[in-house]
Structure formats: structure tokens, C-alpha cells
């Protein structure tokens, strides 16, 4: 249960005073509580732990990290 699972927010709504969302985990849809990520909106990727989204994943950072790693690998190949 410690492994957060990344998923994409499909829908945001309120239920019993909590902000909830429908989240797409690679084709499997589940409800998740979005109260801890007030900035999250439809289309964002969130990391969900036991039914609660705790972070919005930064696509930009992910792309940058990968680009950097690829660059290093290319440099190595060249050397």
C-alpha cells in the first residue's frame, strides 16, 4: 500500500464534503479523494495512495529527467 499508483483525473466532483475524482489507472477506473491536491484538475496525473491523491506529478520534470538521462547515455555512446 506504500506504492502510490499514478493515474489521470477524468472527472472531479464533491461527495460528503470531500473533493473526489474519477481516476484512470491505465484503463482501470477508480474513485479517489482529491482533497489533498486542491490544485489538481481534469487531465492531471496524480499519485494515489489507498484512495487518496497526494501529489500532482509534474510532467515537465518527468520529461526533463528523462531527457537528461538520454543525453548522458548518448554522450557515453559517443565517447
Amino acid at each position, binding site marked *: *500500500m*506504500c*506504492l*502510490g499508483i*499514478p493515474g489521470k483525473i477524468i472527472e472531479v466532483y464533491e461527495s*460528503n*464534503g*470531500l473533493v473526489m475524482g474519477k481516476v484512470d489507472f*491505465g484503463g482501470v477506473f*477508480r474513485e479517489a*479523494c482529491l*482533497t*489533498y*491536491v*486542491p490544485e489538481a484538475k481534469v487531465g492531471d*496525473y496524480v*499519485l494515489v*495512495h*489507498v*484512495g*487518496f491523491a*497526494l*501529489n500532482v*506529478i*509534474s*510532467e515537465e*520534470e*518527468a*520529461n526533463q*529527467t*528523462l531527457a537528461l*538521462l*538520454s543525453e*548522458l*547515455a548518448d554522450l*557515453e*555512446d559517443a565517447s
Partner: protein
Amino acid sequence: MDLRLRYGFRDTKLVQAKVRQIRKVLTRPWSIMEICGGQTHAIKKFGLDQLLPEEIELIHGPGCPVCVTSLELVDKALQIASLPDVIFTSYGDMLRVPGSSGDLFSVKARGGDVRVVYSPLDSLKIAQENPTKQVVFFAIGFETTAPANAMCVLQAEALKIENFSMLVSHVCVPPAIRAILSSPHNRVQGFLAAGHVCTVMGYWEYVPIASQFRVPIVVTGFEPLDILEGIYRVVLQLERGTHEVENAYSRVVTYEGNIPAQKVISQVFEVCDRTWRGIGVIPRSGWKLRDTYARFDAERRFETQSVEGQESPLCISGLILQGLKKPYECAAFGTLCTPQNPLGATMVSSEGACAAYYQYSRHAGSSERSHV
């Protein structure tokens, strides 16, 4: 981030390049601990320990909540779950964890109402649907499950759900790191901090630890490239003799963490001493419900008898959780003890070191490595 991007962090070519990079900077042996059982699982699953240079020893830490929930609490769970008119809810992994006698599965087989839930919110729903029953949730976990559990207590209060309570077994990572580093047997020279714990708590708590004990600590994710990057940064620091806290998981983790979650956690929980299975009491290493929320505390709601907890005499999981032994050094590993028939908690959860070794390397020689 789409799935393609996620799998980018598993790219074979990049993985190999990273391993070569580690090899380049390495001049002598180092012992590095990954605290989190999720990382132990990934390391075994992707065979990362086989790819790494021999000089790097990965020591598997105690970061598996299923493994470290104390025998005493498991025994309490078994007693509460056996009571009539109780619906006992838990994550699936806990059902096979051996107590002093039996496990939650055996309680269920004897007619106990034990149900597996995915989220504590499911447990609350069950309580609403069954007003004549007492619904008890086994609230185990590190900092990652605390925001969910804390929010459920607030919801139970707001929605006046009085037939709901929690058996709380929360544990926290930083005190465990301190305990490991303070042990006279300690061999760990650098840490991969658990990325998902840091999504909640940030990584400010590690700064004083790194400087007091002079160990590098690198916040690390869970994909193969993430883990290798974490190891690379720890090795670089060890070779240079520095001891900083670094973040190698910046797409998810920030220095300060999730502030709204931290607020709700400290509203509902307070710090307490906690017994870790196989390790013993670690001071100020857990969270318990504050007195304000005492009525949601299953330990106070139900009388349980204290049983003199007995571990299997064969099980050395305590030594494994402290990084002093590897699973294959246990005489029962893979023979008397398997995931279907676990003698100790570390063989139950996929995040447990024994289970990870059993699942991914039981056919390979115990300490064989191949070279890239």
C-alpha cells in the same frame, strides 16, 4: 505523464548507461540501504542488484508496514476480528500475517466477518451500511497511508459515524533511520529515502540526520532508472565524502511535502513510541490517535487480553529488517516458509524482503551476480 513516459524510466539502454556511470565513479565497496520495501521489490523484480557492480551492497530496510506491525497488534486484531457483531476491515496483505496463533484468514474461516478494503474510505462506507455492527479498520502504514486514515477519522466525526474505529499501527521513517544509524552493528553508509513517504512529508526531516550521522541521503523513486539514479548519487557523495540530502525524484517530491496532508495528520495523530516487529521499540517512531479522537480508537473501544506473543523460533526476520542478514540465510527460506505458508511477516507482503527474494530469485544462486 502518460504511460509511455512512465515506461521511459525502465528503458534498457538508459538503465545500462546508468550502471556504467556508477561503475565509472566507484573506487571501493559501499553499503547502501533502500529503506522502502517497494524499492526492495523493484530491485529484485528488475534484477537491479544483479546489474550493479559487486562493490555495491544493497541492504534492505524495514520499510514494509505489513512486516513491522507488531505481533501484539496483530494478536489484538485477531481478537477483535473474532468478536461477534464486528466487521473487521484490512488491506489484503495483512490477512496472512501470522499472529501468535493463526492469522486473519483463519478468523475468517471460522466465521469471522473479515473484509479486504482498498481504502479506509471503503471501511467508512461499510460502517454506514451496517449501523448495527462495529466496523474496525486495521490502520497500518508509514507516512503514505496516514493522510487517508486521518481524513477518515475526520469524516467519521463529520458524518457522525459512531460505529467506526481504527486499530492504529502507524510507523514513521526518520526515527527508524536514526535507530539504524545509532546501532553498534550498523553497516549502512548511505540511504535511498522512500520517495512516496517524501511525497507526504517532504525531505526536510532528513537534513539534520544527514549532518548528524554524516551520511548521504537521496530521495529516490521506484522505477529502475529512478533507483539507479538514487544509487549513483549516493555513491558519488560517498566517493567525495559529502553527506547531503538530495532529491532524485523531483517529478513528485518537494522539499516541504504535502502541507494540507501534514496538517490533517497532526490534527488527528500525535507522536508515540512504537514497537516494530522483529526490531523492538523505537522511541517516537509512530503515530497514535490524539485524545480528542479517542472514541475512534479500537484499542480503547474493545477490551483485549494481552497475549504473550510468540514468533516462530526459526524466523530471523528481525535480523533481515535491520540489514544484518539476507533472506536466503534463513534455514526456513523457501522450504518451511513460503508466501503461501509464511512463518514470518517479511514473507507475506510483496514489499517484504523474504517475499521479494522468494518471488524473483529463488532459482538463482543466492549471491550470484552477473556483469554488464
